[in-house]
């Protein structure tokens, strides 16, 4: 199954309940008050948030389009269109740090990412910087084995930054291509935990001044408006370079990513559409919105 198919498959549910609905409403309508009210309900019910929804509706009004449906698509694509390629450095290793609140899917995404790089023939090192949560190290180890990556870990309770240091050094000395660091889940309002994350970055920089090249914030598609605050705080403290939106295989629409893109301009780099090794897809705004909006005619059964 190609990316497009898979993405569509993963997003099938949301398309049915969300954009399918929009399609139905908008195809035959211009942007009158009733239509606006319905778009508002649909966007808010998708976790886009009050502010971003108002912004989108304002945009629709400005464009004075006869085809509100087409225009909505355009507006959404525009919001989501940010350069979202990976910042791969000329000199290896390429260091990626995974961060996010508890249970969002960091560890699983580490495994999926490693598999993706392995597929490209790259040598991957995974560093187990979650030394806090029960059996987090064992969990990551299984993923490293599945993906065929080298696994660097210390004991439970060890210093997370020290693990990061070792993983990066290992990659340098063995000329590996990619280092993926899994970190412990933490709520962004816990200052001391956020400080630990900053420390990991500082320690890595001692070995590789430009690392980590990517700091990916993993956000559960179920997340409501708090996702915006997560993105703000994590960006402030560790300089988030991209979002991974996970669990899009459920009925959650992940609309908070639209609010984040609009408000903070952080690009979405990947989407998670399942619990398997291959269930990570690069995010392409056009395909994404296209996949959400297109094909509704066939699915309308």
């Amino acid at each position, binding site marked *: 199954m190609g990316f497009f198919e898979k993405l569509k498959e993963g997003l099938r549910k949301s398309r049915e309940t969300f954009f399918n609905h929009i399609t139905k409403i908008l195809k035959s309508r211009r942007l009158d008050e009733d239509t606006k009210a319905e778009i508002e309900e649909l966007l808010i019910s998708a*976790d886009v948030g009050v502010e971003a929804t108002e912004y989108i509706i304002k945009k629709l009004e400005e464009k004075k389009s006869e085809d509100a449906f087409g225009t909505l698509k355009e507006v959404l694509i525009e919001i989501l269109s940010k350069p979202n390629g990976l910042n791969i450095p000329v000199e290896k290793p390429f260091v990626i740090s995974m961060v996010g609140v508890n*249970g969002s899917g960091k560890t699983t995404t580490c495994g999926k990412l490693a598999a993706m790089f392995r597929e490209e023939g790259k040598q991957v090192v995974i560093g187990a910087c979650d030394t806090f949560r*029960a*059996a987090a190290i*064992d969990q990551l180890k299984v993923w490293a084995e599945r993906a065929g990556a080298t696994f660097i870990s210390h004991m439970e309770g060890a210093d997370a930054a020290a693990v990061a240091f070792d993983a990066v050094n290992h990659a340098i000395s063995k000329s590996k291509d990619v280092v993926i660091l899994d970190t412990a889940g933490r*709520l*962004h309002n816990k*200052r001391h935990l956020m400080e630990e994350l900053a420390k990991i970055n500082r320690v890595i920089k001692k070995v590789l001044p430009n690392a980590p090249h990517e700091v990916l914030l993993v956000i559960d598609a179920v997340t409501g408006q708090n996702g915006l605050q997560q993105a703000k705080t994590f960006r402030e403290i560790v300089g988030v370079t991209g979002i991974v939106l996970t*669990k899009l295989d459920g009925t959650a629409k992940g609309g908070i990513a639209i609010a984040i893109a609009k408000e903070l301009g952080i690009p979405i780099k990947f989407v998670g559409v399942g619990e398997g090794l291959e269930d990570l897809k690069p995010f392409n705004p056009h395909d994404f919105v296209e996949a959400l909006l297109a094909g509704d005619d066939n699915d309308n059964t």
Partner: protein
Amino acid sequence: MFEGLREKLSNAFRVLSGKGKITEKNIEEAVQIVKTSLLAADVSYKVVKEFVENVKKRALGEEVLKSLTPDQMFIKIVRDELVRLLGEREPLKLVHNPSYVMMVGLQGTGKTTSAAKIANYLKKQGKRPILVAADTYRPAAIDQLEVLGRKIGVPVITGDRRNAIKIVQDAMRQVKDSGYDVVILDTAGRLHVDEEMMQELEEIKKMIRPDEILLTVDAMAGQDAVNSARTFNERLEVTGFVVTKLDGDSRGGVILTIRYITGKPVKFVGVGEKVDDFDEFYPDRIANRILGLGDVLSLIERVERELDQEKLEKMGQKFIRAEFTLEDFREQIKEIKKLGIDKILEALPGASQVDLDTSEKELRKIEAIINSMTPQERNNPEIINASRKRRIAAGSGTTVQDINKLLKSYEEMKKLMKMFKKGKMPFGLKGFRF
């Protein structure tokens, strides 16, 4: 932290204040702001709509109490309605022996952690809980529960580690006549639309006939909670919720949603990653939280539970006899530090980074001052005269003024403590902030 909601609400009420009556006209804007605020708090769109309609109806129908301004009256109505919808606080209903508690929910919401927290909670109440690890899907899920079980001294049944149904069968055999009275079952995270996985839960339910089926819900969840909570409830008839990650700064509007959609009670809330970070559900406190009034009481309760019971009783006695000394004060500060000042401040409305920094500084100062006292002075603060104050100030690198402030807040705290009943930890949260 809950600034947005609170500010907006107070704005709404400002709109109303100054006018003698709540009228069709002046209520509109207030209602609109409440609506927006609740949406920003992640309450489901449909629920919000109905909620504000009810509030409006009540506000227009009700006489404004003499003692209240219209805006106060309005906030009272909003709050009452919230509390009513949030429902009663309900304990676990464990009737069989052994009784089964089944944890279910979406991926990563906190089932495994909450299973251990419940076991720990029951154990502290004198029950004999046992855990069953029936998540055979997520890598190392069974190890995770084993680690947690070891931490709290509760055994974990893992069966063949491969087949959830078999593990459950195994567990049922093992716990029969074993003396364990509550069996807590951890299951794999799953999507409510995953037919096969939902059937697995139905099958397990049929086998164990659980007294409680608890759906874990992430406090940060948004609008889709309507779908997942509804489906889980329809398929399994859940008996209640565990709302997790309330130690974050999400407004927790999802609690209103799931209550409204299912009518099932919230039985516990998770307020951290550690096994003790667990509270019973108090609807009025959650309503306060949603309205931005903070969650102070719930925190006090946690402090009580975490403190050594014996020490607590001794202190309680002292409080009653007003024998609470600065030595005890110092002990308390240690406990506060153990718990984490940031946690305490998180529970206080409007606390900011600045508060955290100053509170940390202040606590350090208080400790330094008390450390510079002689044991006699600590146990008998009345003897601290001017010259002693100067000595203590010099010894602790503070000023006489600081000493005076401390002694004054100590006196206030002592007075406050007399008012609390025996055995309670009368935490004067404001008492130590000077």
